[in-house]
């Protein structure tokens, strides 16, 4: 297959020669060719026999230990998307036409045109399992990883958000996991100087052994400054910069090292990666200065597969070849073997491709920021990724075979055995409450709907001084103009929201994924921004379980269809499989992030009732939809039936009205309707500024107040603007119901109940502190 | 080669919320008989030469200047071994 790998080593070494001070054998390409039958621990590295056979086919010999390290990690589910690929391609094939999309899926993060020469790049990524093992470091490094993805696009990261799922709020382990996760996000994100502007915190017993920590980062750059992960230009230098490489997260590689080389020092390696946010902050400023000095040809962050991933991907997308001397990689632990260096997940590292003439300038900028940087190799036109260790060639592979040509599985799937029974168990049989006031307070004080201030007050939402809206607003919103020093002014802003409802997706993954998109889309629109693009983090159980795979296939199909209908393309995202304990998977949890643009950020619509004497208007129709609802969950511990209908055309019309009304200055406040329905939306709107409201309902009060029908929002309109607003709604066929007015110190639902805002506040704010101290 | 240990502790009169939190957690974990916990920092300083009086004086100066904030912290210096 390969010319070079068959060639005798230029060093003429004998097979099996001990090459280092510890007397350990370097498994060179020459040695591999000479010992074709030496057993390799591919199974311990999670590789299947047929995958291993394919590596041998590609190389025309057995892989060396270092090559096996590279293929095993690059062909892992995490890096290769081998189980999800066949489904994910729908995001491309069904993608709506969008002129805004500058960089789509497949790069570190998608990039969208947000006008006036500006582009935004954003992505959400999971760090679920590490956050269960060590909540603080797991969550912290999750933030660090997604921030580096954004940096590697050439952007300045400007904000983060976190979508979190935990087990039952009162479960013992939740008291370990949640405070640790929040502290990890808080410490890392705050220390980076990135405002945390939104996200979610959701509790459900299904996440007890599998918390979900999905971190989103958004960055800003000039449209013509996009950087890509590519290594073109033979002779260009490959620079590794940032933290040094240590034995972090290389449990797998240790298996390899100990199996190939008898050495006790390899026995124990920590599985937990430790983050250094200070180094990451220096990296951010350093990278931005490198970009400004135009000394970077290509760049890639080092994520899950470390040097393996960065070198193979850069080489595969560039001229095609790269020579690397692994001895040059700066090590925190000098005992590391090459296989471990290749698989190390040490944080806060980046790899750049730099023209030789620019190396001095590159190094000077790194020195200014105290960021260590080392040339470890150079770009070639050989089509081969060649790595040496102690002068011997230990890797010689076509990089594309590792980076892009991993295995692809058409995993079998079928509807879960209990799905029909689950859908048949409709909430109709549940007893309706007599006391709606008590029901509201019970919901408002339940962990999922209670104030998340205990969490969000640990996040800096103000740093960088561009935060227009942050939690508990429906979307986080940022001013663009001042986000990068010295940049041209613009009135524009961006808005971001993430949503996902695992209960809905359990009942119907197709609709559940659409509802997640619809809610995030709506949350962006209610603040006055036009939804533009989508990122997603798809959290599921094991793809090897055909029932889980069905949930996944349905969710992807639903999301792709909904993106097409709503005209918002998926720009990138992440799949997290194996979120299960034993054979019990989590509820399928597609989390969807939507980015929108507001032309004049000063016209943003704040969340809730901001003043007295405003008309309270409900937009959208309410049906009796209680499947998967908060009411069924909190009051009856019931999950069954079907989720609300995803009314996408209605959703689109609603968004059009909201965005246009905001731009015409017709809205004083707004709030989307979702979990807990109108009752909870009214209560939260009163709580925003402590302004009460009096409303009147027509129809069944319970359904009107607690149903979770989609495509609805609450707005507050000045009385004199009401007619103009109503005619705007009529023109777009958005149902519009005047419910009452804002004012007073209570939430009054005529003939149903009255609750003082102060009582709402006490109930709403007490729940989380009572649980977590 | 010698190793010198510098222990830095909050002064007794300064509130130590971290130590208190640990003290509160111990009974929950089944440890009894603890009347208080104070949390501090330990620095291990490897010297190129011997830990003679001059070297120790230098380490004390390091502690005074950088390792401890003597407004709120005390330090102690000892040779390990």
């Amino acid at each position, binding site marked *: 297959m390969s010319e070079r790998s068959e060639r005798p080593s230029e060093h003429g070494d004998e097979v099996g020669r001990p090459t280092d001070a510890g007397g350990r054998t370097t498994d060179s390409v020459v040695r591999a060719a000479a010992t074709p039958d030496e057993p390799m621990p591919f199974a311990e590295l999670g590789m299947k026999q047929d995958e291993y056979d394919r590596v041998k086919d590609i190389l025309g010999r057995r892989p060396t230990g270092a090559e096996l390290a590279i293929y095993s990690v690059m062909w892992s589910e995490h890096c290769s998307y081998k189980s999800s690929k066949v489904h994910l391609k729908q995001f491309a094939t069904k993608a709506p036409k969008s002129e805004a999309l500058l960089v789509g899926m497949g790069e570190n993060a998608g990039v969208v045109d947000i006008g006036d020469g500006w582009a935004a790049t954003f992505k959400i990524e999971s760090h679920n399992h590490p956050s269960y093992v060590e909540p603080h470091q797991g969550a912290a490094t999750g933030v660090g990883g997604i921030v580096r993805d954004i940096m590697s696009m050439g952007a300045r990261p400007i904000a983060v958000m976190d979508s979190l799922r935990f087990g039952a709020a009162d479960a013992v382990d939740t008291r370990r996991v949640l405070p640790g996760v929040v502290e990890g996000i808080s410490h890392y994100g705050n220390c980076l100087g990135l405002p945390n502007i939104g996200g979610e915190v959701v509790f459900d017993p299904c996440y007890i052994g599998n918390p979900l920590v999905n971190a989103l980062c958004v960055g800003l750059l000039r449209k013509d400054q996009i950087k890509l992960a590519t290594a073109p230009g033979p002779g260009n230098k490959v620079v590794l910069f940032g933290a040094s490489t240590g034995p972090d997260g290389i449990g797998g590689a240790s298996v390899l090292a100990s199996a190939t080389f008898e050495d006790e020092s390899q026995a124990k390696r920590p599985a937990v990666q430790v983050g250094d946010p200070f180094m990451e902050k220096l990296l951010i400023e350093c990278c931005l200065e490198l970009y400004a000095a135009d000394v970077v040809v290509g760049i890639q962050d080092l994520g899950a597969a470390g040097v393996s991933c960065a070198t193979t991907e850069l080489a595969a997308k560039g001229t095609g070849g790269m020579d690397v001397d692994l001895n040059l990689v700066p090590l925190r632990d000098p005992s590391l073997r090459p296989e471990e260096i290749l698989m190390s997940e040490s944080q806060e590292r980046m790899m750049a491709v730099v023209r030789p003439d620019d190396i001095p300038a590159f190094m000077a900028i790194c020195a200014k920021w105290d960021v260590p940087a080392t040339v470890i190799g150079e770009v070639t036109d050989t089509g081969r990724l060649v790595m040496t260790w102690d002068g011997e060639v230990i890797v010689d592979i076509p990089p594309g075979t590792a980076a892009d040509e991993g295995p692809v599985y058409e995993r079998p799937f079928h509807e879960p055995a209990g799905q029909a029974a689950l859908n048949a168990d409709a909430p109709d049989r549940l007893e309706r409450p007599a006391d709606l006031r008590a029901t509201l307070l019970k919901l408002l004080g339940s962990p999922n709907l209670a104030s998340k201030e205990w969490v969000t007050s640990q996040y800096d939402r103000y740093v960088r001084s561009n935060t227009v809206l942050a939690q508990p607003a429906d979307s986080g919103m940022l001013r663009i103009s001042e986000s990068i020093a010295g940049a041209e002014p613009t009135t524009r802003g961006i808005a971001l929201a993430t949503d996902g409802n695992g209960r809905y997706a359990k009942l119907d993954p197709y609709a559940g994924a659409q509802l997640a998109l619809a809610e995030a889309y709506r949350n962006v629109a209610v603040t006055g921004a036009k939804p533009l693009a989508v990122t997603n983090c798809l959290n599921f159980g094991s793809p090897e379980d055909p029932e889980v795979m069905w949930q996944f296939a349905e969710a992807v199909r639903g999301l792709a269809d909904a993106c097409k209908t709503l005209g918002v393309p998926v720009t990138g995202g992440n799949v997290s499989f194996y979120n299960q304990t034993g054979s019990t998977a989590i509820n399928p949890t597609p989390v969807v992030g939507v980015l929108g643009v507001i032309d004049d*950020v000063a016209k943003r619509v704040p969340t809730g009732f901001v003043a007295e004497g405003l008309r309270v208007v409900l937009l959208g129709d309410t049906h009796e939809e209680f499947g998967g609802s908060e009411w069924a969950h909190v009051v009856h511990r019931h999950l069954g039936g079907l989720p609300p209908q995803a009314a996408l055309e209605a959703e689109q019309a609603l968004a059009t009205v909201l965005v246009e009304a905001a731009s015409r200055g017709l809205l004083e406040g707004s709030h989307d309707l979702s979990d807990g329905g109108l009752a909870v939306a009214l209560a939260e709107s009163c709580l925003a500024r402590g302004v009460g409201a009096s409303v009147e309902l027509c129809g069944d009060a319970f359904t009107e107040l607690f149903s979770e029908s989609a495509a609805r929002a609450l707005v507050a309109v000045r009385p004199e603007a009401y007619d103009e607003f109503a005619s705007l709604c009529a023109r777009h066929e958005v149902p519009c119901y005047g419910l009452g007015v804002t004012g007073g110190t209570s939430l009054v639902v005529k003939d149903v109940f009255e609750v003082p805002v102060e009582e709402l506040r006490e109930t709403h704010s007490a729940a989380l502190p009572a649980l977590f101290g | 080669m010698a190793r010198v240990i510098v222990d830095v502790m909050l002064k007794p009169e300064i509130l130590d919320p971290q130590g208190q939190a640990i003290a509160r957690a111990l009974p929950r974990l089944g440890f009894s008989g603890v009347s208080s916990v104070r949390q501090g920092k330990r620095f291990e300083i490897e010297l190129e030469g011997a830990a003679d009086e001059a070297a120790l004086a230098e380490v004390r100066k390091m502690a005074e200047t950088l390792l401890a904030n003597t407004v709120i912290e005390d330090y102690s210096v000892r040779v390990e071994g």
Partner: protein
Amino acid sequence: MSAARVGVVTFPGTLDDQDAARAVRLVGAQAVPLWHADRDLNGVDAVFLPGGFSYGDYLRCGAISRFAPLMEEIVPAAKAGLPVIGTCNGFQILCEAHLLPGALTRNGSLHYVCRDQKLRVEQTATAWTNAFEAGQEIVLPVKHGEGRYVADADTLAALEAGGHVVVRYLGGNPNGSLNDIAGIRNEAGNVVGLMPHPEHAVEELVGAPSTDGLGFFTSILKNLVNA
């Protein structure tokens, strides 16, 4: 008259430097970026030490920054009367540098806290608070994990007796500071340190729901014009 020049210092890990510079510009002064490794104050009329996590807050907040080359210029200049303000990490640095007494320690709650905080301006005889009225109640954001002001009893008594407490927390102490102290000044009144962030309360559109932070910046202008 040319615009007053306020130096804004960046240490490795400083975060609120751009924000402070913007606030300086908003009141019509010139923001002069100062780099920690330089030994040149560029002839600025005043210095702003912004918040952040300089050197990752490793060792102690402000403990390493205090030894920056630029600090070797700032300390004597401050002692000679140059107006200097430190917010959050800047306050921590001023205490570590002994330009202000006492120290900032871990919040009593052990949690980082970001919230809009009500404060009372206790002392207007400083270079940075003369635009306020004594006793004026304002709202500024706090955002820190180590903001609990401590000092020994004598120091505390001297601060109170000398009128050196500049701002005090109202409506709930966010960190357990002694005497609800949010900010203090030196004897001469040219050096002020506080945990809350005036620079995040200067515009209606962004940051805290208040523009009370502007007073700190208009104060320094007033001070420089009158000087």
